[in-house]
Each structure stands twice: as structure tokens, then as C-alpha cells.
């Protein structure tokens, strides 16, 4: 038996099929993963993401520590609650994990602190790495928050339905959130972030309050969704999955994460910087692209990608896209790949189109 989130009984009650995910018993779906996917694109769905790891970073050196730890620069967070997506790299420039960091106070004030959300499957190595890196700083403390549950509510109606499920002060707080911002209200941390390519919220709240909140959302018509739909939604949105699309052996420059590296200011030293700089100078040989297959069949991870006259690559994540009605994938291919490739599926070569790795945003197809 794996670890259980505070919503375990709700999942059983709502008919979830539970599977092991990084040591946790999590819902894969509640009947149909495809129905759940459409529900998020068309109205609103909710996901239990309490298994994710929340770490608060405090102390007078908190900011300088994060500027060293992360490839993106927390100095960009210039408003209370603003969030930043970043890779956490090793010295070789490989991705230890990807994460979201929130500025929890006004910028630059005394007592300024941050909240970091990392993946569940990488929890132990992340915590160890983060803790090791505090050694070069005098005053930084890491505090895991294992007692916080976390619910993601996603879809075009997510915000309006969530507002109907909370008290008045939280409703007001939701109204004032900008995209990629999270703020606290009576012990709840409410953020306008997500992993689906739709508008929505991610809410961290005390475990003993989450079951009632989940029920209130369900009563408003927010559909419970499992990790299956979460994966097809994030893949359509072109969002990386750690362990599939990148890991410690992959450079962010070969994982469509170049935009998350803050090269400026040049004097900022961050872990992995030197290695990335060297890669950039010698030329990055691979990149992460999107693939679209307009014929029948489904692209799957680890299938071979053949680029005629250029070389070979591999699918890192592939699925059937319920929104588009065809298969899409992310693949790591030689840098010289143009707009056509073949994928080897069950011994046959099938032509695919190569596009930017983003397929659906706010319910609409985004590639030509």
C-alpha cells in the first residue's frame, strides 16, 4: 500500500481507479480519462495534487540562495505572490527537477520568503540537493509542508465555479489574482497556476479542510479528474513532464527550457551555468519538438524518430490528443530537423509533422 492523500476516501467514494504514482495511491481516472480531459477543456475539472512536495524557503539569504540554486532568476518576481517556472540543475547542466517558486511577501522586504513546489517522484533527491546547497549560505532554512493538501481546478469555468465554493474573503482574493500569482487567505494559498493550458487555480490548504472543499467543488459541477487526463492535458499544452521529457542527463537547452534560463545579469552565478554556457558555445545538438500524426494510430514514448538525411531521435512523451482527435508527441531530435520526420511504429515508418511543442491552449489548437 502506498501513501494516501487526505482525499483518498473521496476518491474511492467518487469511483476512482487508483494506481501507484511515486509511492502514492492516486486516481488515474474516475471512469473515463477522455471524458475528464474534455470536461477540463470545456468547463472545469479538479485534480488532487497533494502528493506534490511543498518547501518553504526562509531566512535573510533566501533570495540569494534561490538565485544560486535555480537557472531562472527569482529577482524577476517583482510583485507579492508572483510565480516563476524554473529548472534546478546540477553542475553539468542536467535537470534535477523542474519547479514553481512563489514570492510569498512583498519583494525586497525584511523577512522576504519563497515557496517552492517540486515533483513528488523526485522529492528525496530534491530535498537532499536543496539542503546540500544551503551550506554556502549563512541564513537560509528549508521547511517542508507535508500537511498541506493541494487541489488544482482547471478549465474555462474553473475560476467562476471555485469562487462559488469558497467564502467571501477568498472569493475576493481570487478576483484580484493575476495570471501566475498566488496569495494567502486564512491559511489557504490560492494561486492562478496550473498544468493544463487552461485558466484555473492551484490551492494549497490544510489537510483537514480539503475533503469538504473537494465536495463543495463537486457540488458546483467541477468534475474530479485523474492523473491520466492530467497527462494528456499537459502534453497538449506542451508542458514538460519530469522523468519523461527531461532528466539529469538532459540539458534544458535540449528540453525546450531555454526560455527558463536567465542569462542576465551575467555576474549571477547559478548551478549549471558554466556547463550551459559551454554547451551554448559549442552548439546544442538536439532539441525538443512537437510531433503531429494525422493518420490513425498513437505515438508513444521511446518510439524512434527518423529524420531523413539528418539523423535519429526519440519520442519522450506521446499520446492520443482528445482535443485534436489525433496523436501528438514531444520528441528529442537532431537540431537540424525541419518540418517533417518519420516515426517507427510497430515496425512501420509513419510520416509525422514537426511543430513547436505546444498543441492546445485555452481549448484551441495552436499550431498551423
Amino acid at each position, binding site marked *: 500500500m502506498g501513501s494516501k492523500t487526505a482525499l483518498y476516501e473521496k476518491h474511492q467514494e467518487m469511483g476512482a481507479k487508483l494506481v501507484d504514482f511515486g509511492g502514492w495511491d492516486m486516481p488515474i481516472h474516475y471512469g473515463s480519462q*477522455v471524458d475528464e480531459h474534455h470536461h477540463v477543456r470545456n468547463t472545469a475539472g479538479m485534480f488532487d495534487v497533494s502528493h506534490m512536495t511543498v518547501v518553504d524557503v526562509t531566512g535573510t539569504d533566501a533570495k540569494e540562495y534561490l538565485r544560486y540554486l535555480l537557472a531562472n532568476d527569482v529577482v524577476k518576481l517583482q510583485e507579492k505572490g508572483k510565480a516563476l517556472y524554473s529548472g534546478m540543475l546540477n553542475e553539468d547542466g542536467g535537470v534535477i527537477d523542474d519547479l514553481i517558486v512563489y514570492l510569498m511577501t512583498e519583494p525586497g522586504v525584511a523577512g522576504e520568503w519563497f515557496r517552492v513546489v517540486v515533483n513528488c517522484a523526485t522529492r528525496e533527491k530534491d530535498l537532499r540537493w536543496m539542503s546540500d546547497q544551503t551550506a554556502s549560505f549563512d541564513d537560509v532554512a528549508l521547511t517542508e509542508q507535508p500537511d498541506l493538501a493541494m487541489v488544482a481546478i482547471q478549465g474555462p469555468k474553473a475560476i467562476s465555479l471555485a469562487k462559488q465554493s469558497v467564502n467571501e474573503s477568498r472569493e475576493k482574493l481570487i478576483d484580484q489574482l493575476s495570471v501566475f500569482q498566488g496569495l494567502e487567505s486564512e491559511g489557504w494559498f490560492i494561486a492562478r497556476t496550473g498544468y493544463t493550458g487552461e485558466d484555473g487555480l492551484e490551492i494549497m490548504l490544510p489537510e483537514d479542510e480539503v475533503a469538504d472543499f473537494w465536495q463543495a467543488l463537486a457540488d458546483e459541477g467541477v468534475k474530479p479528474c485523474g492523473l491520466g487526463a492530467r497527462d494528456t492535458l499537459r502534453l497538449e499544452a506542451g508542458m514538460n513532464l519530469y522523468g519523461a521529457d527531461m532528466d539529469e542527463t538532459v540539458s534544458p537547452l535540449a528540453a525546450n527550457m531555454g526560455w527558463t534560463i536567465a542569462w542576465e545579469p551575467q555576474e549571477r552565478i547559478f548551478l549549471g551555468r558554466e556547463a550551459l554556457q559551454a554547451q551554448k558555445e559549442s552548439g546544442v545538438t538536439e532539441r525538443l519538438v512537437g510531433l503531429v500524426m494525422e493518420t490513425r494510430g498513437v505515438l508513444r514514448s521511446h518510439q524512434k524518430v527518423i529524420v531523413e538525411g539528418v539523423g535519429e531521435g526519440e519520442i519522450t512523451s506521446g*499520446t492520443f490528443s482528445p482535443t485534436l482527435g489525433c496523436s501528438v508527441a514531444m520528441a528529442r531530435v537532431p537540431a537540424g530537423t525541419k518540418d517533417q520526420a518519420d516515426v517507427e511504429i510497430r515496425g512501420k515508418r509513419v510520416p509525422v509533422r514537426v511543430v513547436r511543442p505546444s498543441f492546445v491552449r485555452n481549448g484551441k489548437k495552436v499550431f498551423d
Partner: protein
Amino acid sequence: MSNIPSELKYVASHEWIRVEGDGTVTIGVTDHAQDLLGDVVFVELPEVGADVATGDESGVVESVKAASDIYAPLSGEVIAINEELEDSPELVNSDPYGDGWFFKLKLSDNDELNELLSAEGYTDLCESEA
């Protein structure tokens, strides 16, 4: 527990067989199989007129999760395929023993029917795999 109708026959690769009594059979995948597969998004079926032998790969079911081969549970000639599945593969999930059928065979060797599992035998098999 999944639904295993007693009037049908089964094979260990999770296909069901309905013996029609006129030398033909109808074949599909079981409720247990569709549950393991998850949402079915494509079904590739053999061609009408094709001869298949027991154990031949004669199609593919692609679900959101994985691709699975369909094996011919008996030998014979394919006399019909379920064309509805082209546009509505989800019938395999919603009605595996009815509208979600795959293909029909005209048997070349009726004796092969003796090799099939009963509903009871298939139930035991599913339980032993669980």
C-alpha cells in the same frame, strides 16, 4: 468485478467468442480487457475475406494508455468487421459484448471450439492474474 457473461466462450488473451450455431463466431474483447486498456481511441481490424489462423495477430487496439494486439482466437475466414468502431472506438469501452464487437469468422475447424474457456474458466484466469 468485471462482467463475464456465461453464454460466451473466452481465450486467455482476453477475447470473447460468441458461437452463432451456423459455423460462424463473433469476436470481441472482454469487459476485463477494456477496463485494463482504458479509453480506446483506435481499433485496427483485419480485412473481410482474410484467412486467419489461431494465434495470428489480426488487429490492434490503441487506448490512451497502450497499444495491444488482437489475436485470432480461432481459425477461419473473416466474414464481417465492425465498421462502427472506426468512428466510435469508445463502443469497446461502453458495450464490449454488444456494439463493441470486432469481427466475425467463418470457422475452418469446428473442433477448435473445444479449446475455448468457459465463463467459469475465464473468471478463474482473471482472478489468478489479479
